[in-house]
């Protein structure tokens, strides 16, 4: 039962990744793209978790921790960049 469900979950997450990528390419402003990037990072965290179940390697969760950390730092960095750009 688990492998079948994992296939479905892979499909759903891929669809979500595709939709977030559409917003990333189309997004009219830079904050929209940053929001899409953050959602992509969140989806990838889910992907890594599902892959850890799929392969049975629990060490992959460290990758999820690092991805969540870097996504947060990227969001903060982008926001700082945006705000500083307006004060010139």
């Amino acid at each position, binding site marked *: 039962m688990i492998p079948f469900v994992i296939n479905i979950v892979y499909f759903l997450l891929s*669809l979500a990744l595709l939709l977030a990528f559409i917003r990333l390419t189309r997004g009219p*402003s830079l904050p929209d793209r940053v929001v899409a990037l953050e959602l992509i990072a969140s989806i990838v965290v889910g992907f890594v978790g599902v892959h850890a179940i799929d392969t049975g390697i629990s060490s992959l969760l460290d990758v999820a921790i690092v991805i969540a950390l870097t996504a*947060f730092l990227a969001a903060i960095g982008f926001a700082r960049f945006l705000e500083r750009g307006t004060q010139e």
Partner: protein
Amino acid sequence: MTDIIVSILLLVGAGFMLLAAVGIVRLPDLPTRMHASTKAGAMGAMFTMAGVAFFFADGVVLARAFAIVVFILITSPIAAHVIGRAGYFIGTPLWSGTIKNELRDNYDSQTHTLRSGYEDSPESVTPPPEPNPDKKP
């Protein structure tokens, strides 16, 4: 039994993430898109991590999954707040159907100062301190 719980948790998590992605494509402006992506995305990641913790049923994995959940729960609102603030500062257009924008009248985008709107009302004047009768001059 464990398989059923893990399957349900994974499917719910993936469903939340798909909802977040649909919301980020369909909704009209930046705050509504953030409203969809940050909450539903964090919820999906948390459900997926709960499924992982149930599947492995191990103390170390449980601690890691819990760490990821707590980290997402802490950082997701902060990132949303910071991006929304930056987006408002640089003048990202709001949706044409927006009915409430309380910052528009009180916030000066040039000087980054925010008025409360009560500066000119008589209630904002602080009354003079009552003279203390017991105090000797």
